[in-house]
């Protein structure tokens, strides 16, 4: 890593140029973070010459509204989701309760199906 080069990269013009070169990538920053389609988690393990595959799909609702998040399950069984990235949980109920603690306003304001809140004022069409 060359210090002179990286000091150059920290100049405003260089930052603008880097963003410009990544315009396609950064244009999707507000997209949902799980892959499109079914949010299925796949666990694999090899045991005594056998291949184990566990596919998990959760369906979560809060107040009858779908809470459509992608849960990842570690081989330990602990669950994790992108909305609260620096923690994992022993149970999905615990995870959803913590999401309600942290994002309480969003759940309270949820007069419409979850996953579409906040999109009503936009111009749409960005997905």
């Amino acid at each position, binding site marked *: 890593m060359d210090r002179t*080069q990286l000091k150059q*990269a920290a100049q405003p013009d260089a930052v603008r140029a880097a963003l410009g070169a990544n315009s396609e990538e950064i244009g999707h920053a507000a997209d949902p973070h799980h892959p499109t389609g079914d949010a299925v988690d796949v666990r694999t393990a090899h045991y005594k010459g056998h291949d184990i595959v566990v596919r998990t799909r959760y369906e979560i609702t809060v107040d009858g509204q779908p809470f459509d998040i992608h849960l990842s399950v*570690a081989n*330990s069984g602990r669950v994790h989701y992108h909305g609260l990235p620096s923690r*994992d949980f022993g149970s999905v109920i615990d995870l959803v309760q913590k999401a309600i603690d*942290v994002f309480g306003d969003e759940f309270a304001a949820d007069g419409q199906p979850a996953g579409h809140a906040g999109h009503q004022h936009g111009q749409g069409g960005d997905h």
Partner: protein
Amino acid sequence: MPGTSTARAVITDMAAIRSSITNNAEARENFVRGVLLLKDEFLGPTTADFGITGPAEPLSTYDLFTVWHHLAMGRLTPPTQGDRNAAHSGPVFLPWHRLLLLLELQFQRVLNDDNVGLPYWDWSDDGNLPAAQQLGATLWQATGIGGSGESVSDGPFRSDQFRVRIDSDRFGRLRATNRGLNRELGNDIATLPTPADVATALQLPEYDSDPWDRDATGFRNTLEGWIGPSGLHNRVHVWVGGDMAPATSPNDPVFYLNHCDVDRIWEAWMLDRGRVYVPDQSVSGDLAMHRLDDAMYSILIAQPITPRDVLDASDFYTYDKLP
């Protein structure tokens, strides 16, 4: 004249020294000024460039680093799994955050001083105190970086001086906002990690291991906090709470103080074990963006930088003290 230019050359070529924010008033002062200047610098990008709906709002240089972190977190590596991403839950966790901490070069630019180093917060020092005293530690005073609040109301990052412009919603999507900083110190978990927790992690001989994710054994996963009793880095995010909880956690300047300390612990480990990193390119392409010679995920620096490139950062900075 030759004397003058030599002296100048010596000064500009010196690596910055990173010191403790609670023990070094000048380092704290530079950090605060640097953050506020970068929060106030608008190079042109707006929320619209990031696909955020609603009116286009300008984003500051500081905010661009927050977006970079958020985007890295959303880049699943590989996309067929939901655990490891381009910056977390995998081997690249430590080198990638070392790259993000090149925010230090932005500090040096806006403060016009090549010797300014990012300070660290040795949270394990506070972790030794009784829980109630951890909340009242020096860092959280108005003379530090302010305390708790749904909208922090004291210290240099209080809401009339420091606005959060983008954050992550409950689905992990980036959105525009305009509000004060949110902190809930000690609310979710009562105590910080201790020096004994750090010492235990430093004893681990192996950097990382297969399956290279949240399940892996080794130093990286212990320091990141997915395994082991103390939770180290993750626990600090959870203890601070508020804006330190979602993927936009660099919104709270304490993010950088935490990660500078994480980087310092990694540096101590490398000093003991050598500047070694695994995996190299011999493992599967599923580990792309995590291998020794893979370019790390970046939107703000155009040139490719690999984990190998950052293993020795001594041209850039050194720490005044290692754990």
